[in-house]
């Protein structure tokens, strides 16, 4: 009943599928009660759909070629980046106000080359092996950084000591259930403090096809896609971790790439095979960060003045709205 113009044998190995299968208009594959037959008819239907689709594509392509120059421009597919809700805090490269802000904010001494970055890396209490190893690798990647273990010391008391010893930045890696999952980056002489959620942490040994260890050369820094005002300040925070003059002999590059509010960190070694081709090889740990909050002063959870907090209810409402 209603099987179309073909008769299908019960074992499904019926007559070979013809070129054009005719289905009467009231027929639907899902109405066949027999599972094998239904499956068979469905496959046939699927094949036919695919053929039609291919034919349509070919036709369109031919039409396009026939038109030649007069063809309408190819439709650009919509992506989330295309459809991104325009953020009014997007930084215009020529904006004077922003330039002035940046000349006078907490990173000005760094960008004026008055200070050399010196980083202190530490963890939450009682770090487990993975976090410890991650800290060590991070210390090799960031030049002029030192790892100290926090034996139950309060951050608020560490900070004045760090300032006294000329540290410019403090990184605290928070750990939960034996994996690092949070990062607090604090610029020291009363600079802003950013709190990130860290995910997808891969140590060096877990990276496939990695190269040798990162050397002591100062790497270059790439900061991608930090467009808004907030993104700009975070980008500067990251830039302030690395010394100014990268040593190009080292051919190492540290990348902070922002995509849809996720900041991907990668550490590569590159080599120019020709002027149009470059090969990169990943060394070093990798991780992803998502900004949770940005605080004006140094780390102070109770009395701090927050410049930006991620509020889920308000900020996560639209899929095409990003803040960095």
């Amino acid at each position: 009943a209603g099987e179309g113009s073909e008769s299908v044998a019960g074992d499904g190995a019926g007559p070979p599928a013809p070129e054009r299968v005719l289905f009467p208009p009231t027929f639907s594959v899902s109405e066949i009660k027999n599972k094998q037959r239904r499956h068979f008819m469905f496959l046939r239907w699927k094949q036919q759909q695919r053929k039609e689709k291919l034919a349509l594509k070919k036709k369109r392509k031919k039409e396009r070629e026939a038109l030649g120059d007069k063809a309408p421009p190819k439709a650009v597919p919509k992506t989330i980046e295309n459809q991104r809700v325009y953020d009014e805090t997007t930084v215009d490269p020529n904006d004077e106000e922003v330039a002035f802000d940046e000349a006078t904010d907490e990173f000005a001494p760094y960008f004026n080359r008055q200070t050399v970055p010196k980083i202190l890396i530490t963890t939450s209490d009682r770090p487990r092996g993975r976090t410890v190893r991650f800290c060590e690798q991070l210390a090799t990647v960031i030049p002029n950084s030192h790892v100290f273990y926090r034996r139950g010391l309060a951050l608020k008391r560490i900070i004045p000591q760090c300032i006294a010893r000329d540290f410019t930045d403090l990184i605290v890696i928070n750990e939960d259930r034996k994996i690092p999952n949070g990062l607090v980056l604090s610029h020291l002489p009363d600079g802003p403090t950013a709190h990130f959620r860290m995910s997808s942490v891969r140590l060096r040994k877990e990276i496939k096809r990695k190269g040798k260890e990162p050397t002591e050369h100062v790497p270059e820094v790439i900061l991608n896609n930090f467009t808004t005002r907030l993104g700009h300040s975070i980008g500067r925070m990251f830039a302030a971790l690395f010394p100014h003059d990268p040593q190009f002999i080292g051919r190492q590059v540290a990348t902070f790439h922002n995509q849809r509010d996720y900041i991907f960190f990668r550490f590569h070694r590159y080599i120019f095979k020709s002027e149009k081709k470059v090969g990169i090889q990943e060394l070093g740990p990798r991780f992803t960060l998502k900004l949770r909050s940005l605080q004006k002063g140094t780390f102070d959870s109770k009395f701090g003045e927050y410049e930006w907090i991620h509020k889920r209810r308000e900020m996560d409402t639209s899929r095409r709205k990003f803040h960095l």
Partner: protein
Amino acid sequence: LSPLQVVWSMLGNRQFCSYKMTTKTQNFCRNEYNLTGLCNRSSCPLANSQYATVREEKGRCYLYMKAIERAAFPRRLWERVLLSKNYEKALEEIDENLIYWPRFIRHKCKQRFTKITQYLIRIRKLTLKRQRKLVPLRRKIERRENRREEKALIAAQLDNAIEKELLERLKQDTYGDIYNFPIHAFDKALQQQDAESESESDAEREEDDDDDEDVDKREFVEAEDNELSDFEDMDKLETSSEEEQEEEEEVEEKASHSKSKGKTPLKGPARRKRPHIEIEYEEETEPSTKTKAA
């Protein structure tokens, strides 16, 4: 047979007591007035007419006493006495309240009181230290964020982006003269000619080109990338390459394709085909202009 005996022989021993918890080795009593926590004839508050316990409420300790005279009045059954905060004084208070009471109950009361004060002290000490704030994860949100991160990773096309950026920097000359690709230098030469810059630089550029071509033909290999070896080489070669130095070129002959330290994934150990020659023409000086993309 006293009623309490009956109580014990029925409830405690044989039949069901709702406060009793049995485990493999022990019987416990869940009654809140129980002195020791075990289910025994002597520590059952139900089966003893004269009984006392120490309990704490909101950081203060009280001595509870049960007397047989009040057995008929359940509401007034347990008499409560506040104990002093001072440890020794409280012990004395227990003693004076439980004077003439069985030794067992007195002893156990004092032991219990000691334990309670110890844990109260510990609570107070811990609250002074940094408390760990536990923030619950919301499963749906975690899942959503992980998924979005994966998609963002795919959309980011990191390798392409990094390569593009590096090529951009190469084009914009941030690396100075480290890498000399013929076409690149030629383009630079064209630009220089278009801009009608000084003829000196033109001459330099042309010589640059010549050297580049020589380099490509001869295929020098710089085996080690260490700074130490750099210095060694420079010491050796300072004498031999004076001519080049006079021209004051800043050509660094560690041509990029001859570096063997950072191997690209494609050209693996096949590097060592070329002869192991270390020749360096010039001492390197870092180009002073470096721009950092922000």
